[in-house]
């Protein structure tokens, strides 16, 4: 009769845990992967050092003395000029010099606090929204935020109404304009897109036909064409008195364009909802409107979050096309500022800077969407 022997609890073999396992499964799982790993390492080796040299080690940081929220930070005796900045590395003082243009465009320098307040409010919004999840009056708070935030932002930036000096849309530019176009484009187009998606699934033939035609037409046309139409062709049809704002026309074009894309993304989500959900909603007596708002859309939109954000990120990048119709967004500022006779030949710095800012914003957006996904994921919560 064998005697039961208490086994010691042991750690797994060294090849099954930690860095060794990770390297083995991710980088050296087969000889092809091993070759690819070494090739990639070599590529990084020939690319990274020159880039770092240009951006940091050979670059000029002679900003002079910077006033940072009341603190005097001294980088050098005086600010570098184009001539003594050098051509081997980046000339970051140029970016510093043009930072205002990159951020606000031609916005009056005396009124900077207005866009700044809007930036701060936007930041605050991202902090507040996750906090209202379990708050008692969350519906009321959300609703008032949805109405108040765009209103306050518009009044602050555009001025007028006898409160603030009006600032013409021609003077808006840089990152401010990029953010305005992208956020207005996304926010306005989203409800239109949802309606179009529902329309395309509708049993009413006319609505279905209209939605399908609209979506397919817009998706078959490049954004540039739509911007051109909105900017140059549309005014030809309007009486000269009705010639409305160039930015507004661009925004309408972008919103309609994006709505078609959102519609297709949301349609994908709608199709993933099982028939049983529609039947159960019908069977308990909900109306068409209640069924969609209470049952179908919450589930469909949740599934669509990654694609909605993906589509939004595309739009954000596409906003740089407005440069073609004479609106000066952040990317347009690269060309504009490098035409400054005192700072000739500094496009590279401009492009690298704009790339970094864009990346920071879009990467944040993509992380934020991941968080939203996890927060709304009730289906598989255990």
């Amino acid at each position, binding site marked *: 009769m064998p005697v039961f022997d208490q086994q010691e609890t042991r750690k797994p073999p060294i090849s099954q845990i930690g860095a060794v396992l990770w390297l083995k499964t991710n980088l050296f799982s087969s000889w092809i992967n091993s070759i690819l790993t070494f090739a990639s390492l070599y590529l990084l080796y020939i690319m990274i050092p020159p880039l770092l040299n240009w951006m940091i080690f050979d670059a000029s940081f002679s900003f002079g003395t910077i006033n940072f929220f009341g603190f005097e930070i001294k980088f050098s005796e005086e600010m570098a000029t184009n001539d003594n900045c050098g051509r081997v590395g980046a000339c970051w003082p140029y970016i510093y010099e043009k930072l205002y243009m990159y951020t606000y465009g031609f916005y009056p320098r005396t009124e900077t606090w207005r866009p700044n307040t809007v930036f701060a409010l936007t930041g605050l919004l991202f902090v507040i929204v996750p906090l209202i999840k379990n708050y008692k009056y969350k519906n009321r708070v959300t609703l008032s935020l949805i109405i108040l935030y765009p209103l306050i932002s518009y009044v602050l930036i555009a001025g007028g109404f006898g409160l603030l000096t009006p600032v013409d849309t021609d003077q808006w530019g840089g990152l401010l304009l990029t953010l305005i176009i992208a956020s207005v484009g996304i926010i306005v187009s989203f409800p239109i897109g949802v309606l179009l998606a529902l329309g395309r699934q509708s049993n009413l033939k006319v609505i279905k036909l209209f939605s399908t035609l609209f979506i397919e037409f817009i998706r078959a046309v490049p954004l540039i064409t739509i911007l051109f139409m909105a900017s140059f062709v549309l005014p030809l049809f309007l009486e000269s008195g009705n010639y409305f704002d160039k930015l507004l026309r661009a925004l309408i074009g972008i919103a309609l364009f994006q709505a078609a894309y959102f519609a297709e993304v949301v349609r994908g989500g709608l199709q993933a909802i099982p028939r049983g959900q529609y039947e*159960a909603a019908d069977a*308990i007596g909900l109306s068409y409107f209640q069924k969609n708002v209470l049952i179908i859309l919450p589930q469909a939109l949740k599934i669509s979050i990654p694609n909605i954000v993906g589509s939004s990120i595309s739009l954000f990048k596409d906003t740089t096309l407005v440069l073609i119709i004479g609106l000066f967004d952040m990317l347009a500022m690269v060309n504009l500022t490098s035409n400054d006779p005192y700072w000739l030949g500094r496009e590279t710095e401009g492009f690298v800077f704009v790339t970094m800012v864009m990346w920071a914003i879009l990467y944040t957006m993509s992380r934020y969407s991941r968080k939203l996904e996890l927060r709304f994921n009730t289906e598989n919560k255990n």
Partner: protein
Amino acid sequence: MSDNKTNIIEISELNKWYGDFHALKNINLDIKEGEIIVVCGPSGSGKSTLIRCVNFLEKFQEGSILVSGTELTDDAQKIRKIRSEVSMVFQHFNLFPHLTIVDNLTLAPIWVHNETKQEAREKALKLLDRVGIKDQAEKYPNQLSGGQQQRVAIARSLCTNPKIMLFDEPTSALDPEMISEVLDVMIELAREGITMICVTHEMGFARKVANRIIFMDDGQIVEENDPENFFNNAESERLQLFLNQILTH
């Protein structure tokens, strides 16, 4: 069964086609208030289609259905009125996965029957208690077992105080050990006098509570009888064959 009760459902000359396929052929069926009807038959015989016509989840092309005096037509207002009196339990539960159990129950009372949140919630908790899962009220459907989900679905369909309940193979998607917990709830309901039409293959259940059993095949009602005669004196060959197949195990 007492004959002095009024008909709550009157189906006459009902015909339905899916494209070219003739799914229901000339169905005539009257159901009295408080009656328990079990519908059985081989798959594809039209039994689900029949009960789905009663709350207009399926449109039909010919014939008429009267539910407590209201005739089913395309009129959205009428359909909603009928659906508020007829509730349905599905084979695959069809709970709303994005809402908690108690929110699943209060949805229709709040949005269709204009009850206050407080009232609806109290009633929902009472019903959950009755089907034995009050402690799961704040969970989400996917955290529950199949049997529990189906009991929630039954509670959800009771929330609107329906006059008629339709059961569309409520136990077919369940693991064998969970079937009895759902049947127990249904048996209890049957004894309370609610009108029920159940599509099911649970012959034990049929024998125990049904007033009438209807056998369908090929889109027609082949035979209908009380349980006693249905099981012991089957007239048609088709039914005898069917009973042999499902009762010999």
